[in-house]
């Protein structure tokens, strides 16, 4: 039979953080599953949840649990079928020679962060460490890290694979100190794979095939990072290769952390999910708890032999 056309909407521009999908396309793993997959990049003003819910895209690698919860809260019929990053993908960075040695030192300092989820992690961390977030000067973070490099801000939020790399290359890693969410008992899994309820119900084989091929792609990417970066740079040739190689190793750490060694890539750790939900309930980002059973569906993953899923 002809391969079924399908699309994957990314949460962001083509980068090595999505290498596994590009590798799977390049190696024909989706074709082998009977799927003719097109990868659509994300961008600053589009939201994967929305496009998947309406059927404009079949699959989505969406922002994270934050956006999945928000979408369900607003009644968007999306189902999470896998989680990519098992740990909080961003860290809070300060100057090593600066006055901030601990999270308590954030008090009265200028901290910038993304108001798209990261702000809730920051607040949770501060609260856990006994610091009232109201005492910290929290501001939206701009695209550029230059204000931090120039010393205009004290704490900056950075994805481990993107902003952190940029700061590191400008200032040198030894000049930096980082604060990790998990150290404060906060965790925030991101980069979720989603499908619409319709797809989940009517095309389970498609979802399974997609997951199988994607996992294969990612395993190949981890095995051959250079080749994986090649596949990405074919799509976005203006990227900086060194940065992308760094990104892939960082993403590998995020994707293979936690229970993944046992449960396999994209595993949905319901404990982590519940912690994150509580975080959002506390922050009043969502009005009421969402139906976790309807929102998270591990059956597609579970249909794939565990051995195949393990990294």
């Amino acid at each position: 039979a002809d391969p079924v056309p399908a699309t994957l909407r990314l949460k962001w521009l083509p980068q090595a953080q999505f290498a596994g999908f590009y590798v799977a396309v390049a190696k024909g793993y989706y074709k082998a599953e009977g799927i003719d997959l097109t990868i659509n990049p994300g961008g600053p003003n589009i939201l994967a949840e929305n496009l998947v819910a309406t059927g404009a895209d079949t699959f989505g690698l969406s922002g994270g649990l934050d956006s999945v919860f928000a979408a369900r809260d607003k009644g968007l019929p999306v189902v999470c079928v896998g989680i990519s990053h098992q740990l909080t993908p961003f860290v809070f960075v300060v100057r090593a020679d600066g006055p901030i040695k601990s999270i308590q030192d954030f008090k009265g300092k200028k901290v910038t962060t993304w108001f798209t989820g990261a702000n809730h992690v920051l607040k949770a961390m501060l609260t856990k460490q006994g610091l009232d977030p109201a005492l910290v000067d929290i501001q939206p973070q701009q695209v550029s890290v230059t204000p931090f490099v120039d010393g205009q801000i004290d704490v900056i939020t950075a994805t481990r694979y993107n902003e952190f790399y940029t700061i590191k290359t400008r200032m040198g890693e030894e000049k930096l100190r980082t604060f990790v969410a998990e150290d404060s008992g906060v965790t925030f899994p991101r980069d979720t794979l989603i499908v619409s309820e319709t797809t989940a119900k009517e095309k389970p084989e498609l979802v399974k095939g997609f997951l199988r091929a994607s996992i294969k792609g990612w395993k190949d990417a981890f095995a051959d990072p250079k080749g994986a970066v090649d596949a990405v740079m074919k799509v976005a040739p203006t990227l900086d290769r060194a940065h992308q190689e760094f990104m892939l190793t960082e993403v590998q750490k995020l994707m293979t952390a936690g229970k993944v060694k046992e449960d396999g890539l994209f595993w949905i750790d319901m404990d982590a999910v519940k912690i994150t939900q509580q975080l959002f309930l506390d922050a009043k980002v969502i009005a009421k708890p969402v139906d976790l059973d309807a929102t998270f569906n591990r059956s597609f993953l579970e249909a794939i032999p565990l051995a195949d899923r393990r990294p």
Partner: protein
Amino acid sequence: MRPGATPSPLAPLAGVLLRGARGLAILLAVLVAAEGLIVLFGVKPWYVPRPSLVIGAILATPEPYVQGFLRTLTETLMGFVSGALFGIATGVVFFRAKVLKELIFPIFVVSQTIPVIAFGALVVLWFGNTLIAKAAISFYLTFFPVTVNTLLGLESVDPRQEALLRSFGAGRFQLLRRLQLPAALPQIFVALRLASALSLVGAIVGEWFGDTVGLGVLLLQGMYNENVVAIWAAIAMCALLGTGFYAVVAAAERALVFWGAEQ
């Protein structure tokens, strides 16, 4: 001024070449000066990179720039042509049917106060990640000034000229074809020049809604990867496209509206 004493047909071409060469020389001088100043004052590359770096970046991986240029050009042209045609058509319709004008024109005006960029998702929803989606945004930005100016141009046709043609027995279609449209042409071209820039904006913004090829994509990647050299490279390509397209429209104007604002 003797009748029939036209200058050599090569003269305008030579003029264009000469002006082009002079422009190129000035551009080169500016680039060299910028390079010198940046080196001299030690400007950090993430504020303003040296022009040589920018040119180097384009030459290192020319395909995305060439492809992006062609893709964005295609989208721009589609949006521009459809917008211009629609604008002229609605201008004519509004001119002919005042009721329609009074009913619909205010909606057109309001539509132009909406920042499309807020509707990335809707645009993708309706048109997908297709050329059509970009052309649609480009069209949306383009048609309005053309409608307005077509209407203005048609409305400001000398009523005495209309009376003259009517006295020759001309009907509505003859009036439109022989008098009103040609007379509105200078005004329409003013809008088309404006629209040439707007259609490019539309194409670029359209590419921000999840696409893989185009100058808008390159711009976005440069921005979010904090790659200032890439941003400048994309801007340079945009400038090339913008200037080129504007020049073509302006040249068409000079050729078609040779009589200028005379009257």
